[in-house]
């Protein structure tokens, strides 16, 4: 059953945390790393393992914008809008990506193939402006390169992708 497989992944993520102190937050981070999002089953699992209520877990999870509560798209596009990239024209790239994906801001495409996120620094300012697709960096990105990148991801559809 798919549910059981999901739960097994959650349990593994929670129980195999390397650090000595396991908390609600560390468990949520481990699950986010494993699944890319926090399903209801994860809230239940963390609550029972940390002897707190689901409300307490939700209080922590909903505090951080880093956690997602719905599955991410198959592919992840991140556009850097840090100061350097901004100066080098990140805004134009962003608009281009919005148009290509049919989005107004961060979010998932309707077909679930691509998730767009803004990033404040991808750590490659020397290559600005930078865009990343499934954690692969594209430096000195031009509008055309971004178009091609997005078109490639859309063509791959729900195949491949960044999911672990």
């Amino acid at each position, binding site marked *: 059953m798919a549910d059981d497989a999901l739960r097994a992944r959650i349990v593994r993520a929670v129980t195999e945390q390397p650090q000595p102190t396991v908390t609600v937050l560390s468990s949520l981070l481990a699950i986010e790393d494993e699944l890319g999002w926090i399903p209801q089953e994860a*809230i*239940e699992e963390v609550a029972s393992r940390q002897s707190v*209520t*689901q*409300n307490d877990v*939700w*209080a922590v999870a*909903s*505090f951080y914008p880093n956690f997602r509560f719905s599955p991410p798209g198959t592919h992840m596009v991140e556009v850097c809008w840090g100061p350097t990239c901004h100066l080098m024209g990140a805004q134009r790239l962003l608009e281009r990506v919005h148009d290509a994906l049919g989005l107004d801001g961060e979010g998932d495409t309707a077909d679930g193939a691509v998730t767009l996120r803004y990033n404040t620094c991808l750590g490659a300012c020397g290559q600005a402006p930078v865009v990343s697709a499934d954690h692969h960096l594209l430096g000195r990105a031009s509008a055309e390169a971004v178009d091609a990148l997005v078109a490639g991801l859309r063509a791959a559809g729900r195949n491949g992708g960044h999911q672990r």
Partner: protein
Amino acid sequence: MTEPIKLTIDGVEVEAKPGQTVLQAAIDNNVYIPYLCYWPGMKPYGACRMCCVEVEGGRGTPASCTLPVANGMVVNTLGTEIRGLRESVLELLLSEHPHGCLTCHRIELCGPQDICLRHVRVMDRCVVCPKNERCELKDTVRYVNVNMESPLAYNYRNLQVETGDPFYDRDYNLCIVCARCVRVCEEMRGDDAIAMIERSGTVLVGTSQGISLLESGCEFCGACIDVCPVGALVERDHKWDKAVTTVKTTCTHCSVGCQVNLEVDRRGRVIRSIGDWESPVNTGQLCYMGKFGNEFVNSRNRLKTPMLRQHGELVEATWEQALEAIASRLPDYKDGAFSLFLTPRATNQQAYLAGKFARQVMGSNNVDLSVDHRLELVEPLGRRLGAAAATGTVAELESAGCVLVVNANVTEEHNVAAIPIKKAHKAGGKLIVIDTREVELSRYADLWLRPYPGSESALVGGMLRVILDEGLQDDTFITECSGGIDALRESLAGYGIDAVADATGVGADKIASAARAFAQAGSAGIVYALDNVAQDERAPVTDALVNLALATGNVGKPSSGLFPLRPGAASQGALDMGCSAGDDGLSAAQSLEAIAQGGVKAAMVLGDSALFTSEAVHALTHTDFFVVQAMFPSELTEAADVLLPMTSFAEEDGVVTSLDRWALRRRAAIDPVGESRPADSVLTQLARRLGAADFGGHPSEVLQGIREAVPAYAAATDDALDAGGVQIAWSMPERAELTPLPPMQARNGDAPFLFAPGRVLSLPVGEVEVVRSNGKNAIRREDALELHPDDASAMGVAPGDVIEVAANGHRIRGLARTTGPLRGVVSATVLFGELAIALDQSADDDPMLRVPGLHVMPVQVAKA
């Protein structure tokens, strides 16, 4: 003794206790510092920033609720900077809170009859806030004198008011995010049914993913409502009503003895019940019954006049005629032919007079509370420890190193007694629950022992055996205060751990762990109700528990002892007052049998109770003469020869005794409804008509009689009772012997299947679904029945098959789960929310009188 700390607040030198905060010191010394998030007894939080002060030589303007006092500190609460700061803080709070109630120019002009003209927006009107004029925010704005001349704009959150759950309305448009509700739920109740959700600009009170309170673990105690400073959280009943008086009295729904402030409106209705924060018994806490179960007082269906049966019909009569009719008939049924049933909500005065009336006036010992009040739970305590009552204070259990809860559904039936137990557990104390059923506390328990029903004494015997075998007993205590350890040890010969494990179905290692945790805790309390233990087994189990407490030295020291949880608010008081059948009389249940068989020919029922089922009423119709005093018409009152209207607890004066023997005042909050009278008045009038000239009288006169007749109550003086109550002293007798246990009974292998119902505050989300219908939340659940894998395979049942449990015409169907720990037991756990919905929507006049308990019963189990 630590020295008090001296500091100066606004030029006045005050003393504070070490560890206090500046705000607490100010409150203790009658200096007002405005605050909105602090609440006495809860940890400082520092959310609202209203209580900021200046400290000479210090930096900035710290919040006084988080600032510890220090010697020589000079605090200024009134400086210009402080005032400006407070004004800004309030303006920020008001930037998200509708405040037409403060800015409308008609505030001084509107009278109670005026219809709101359109001076402010709809959501701003003072009349759309249920807390209008009892709002702490409004009071604070007025105190701080914020300039409201130019109306401040505010951001209306535009959230739907939550009205789907039982009992509460929640309007988070009015929330000021002080987190009092979240903190009281966590710190005082240990429930965490609500939490602060999201962050900064959007933070609000909520539940996990917005689920209903029905599934978030809420016990509907209403503590969050009582601490809410604004109109966000309110009781749905009488939401818009305003109180004119408040009377402190004692709750009548169980024997914990919670002190409750009843708010009364100008029409004489009890509109709200609020726990008393100064009470040593409940520290402001109530439960779903005490908070939301007092509406019966206001019911339109209350009986208002006496009725007499004439030509087969009940017709209205005067009190004079009714009392005369009773007085003329009763003398024919003196001695054993008369039985008296007293309401389980009686005062001590009523209980005292009932006992006296039956014995002295009617010459009958058949007098009892009309509830199975489980005398067997205290009889061994009276016999062995000097007083038939709890040996300690329930509230003290919060410091216990271990609490053993034996077959008691504390959260539902003695709710507030569960609070110190949960607190002890939170503070690191061990919680051991012995119960076949899944009850709320079994979820918190470090060790949950699920014995086969009826094997509780074997289980306790097994724990004793482990303690003695491992030398964990308290030898000093036994030498000094107790004895009989050799005889006890000898009697435990048959209680070898494997035999006990076999008889109880509880693993040997679990029994041993429980024994060690209890014996090594330092201080350990035993809370027991023995809900599912057969009547003749209750005393032996209690005896075994007394042995457990004595052997480990857990009697007569703080945070330890034995706490019998008996049904009926009057159970302890009635026992102390001699309102019980004793050896020569018939208990309530025995009286009903005797009536059915014709031995008892006349009966007087003072107050309805759950005892009066259809069968019991049918038995009562066999009497020659049958008097009922009740609040509401029912099957019972229909059958009466004489029917008298009864006052509710809110109309009575008297004293009640809690299970840990606090003698507490019951005070009349409203006038008697119609011509209703309290039971003590009826007994007094009747006795005087029957020739007992100086019988009874006013509750204060009767109390005087009680003080003389019952030595333990000599301390229950009017002054002591007015000061908040007096605990009847219990002291450890010089010696309390250990007694041998009876031989262990082996498990009867041919017993029928037993059904163990359970009820908890939250279940995994996958098992329940909350659906909305007609604006109300309802619970849809897939019933699951749990049984032992061996039983399942014997019946050919696989997990997921539909099975059916049947008893007495009732049937439950559910999906089989083969994870049960006990052979011969099938169990099912439901959500407390279902009970809350049923009580909220009940058509009964007095639904809390018959809250369905969790009864283990024999059933047939079959594959459907």
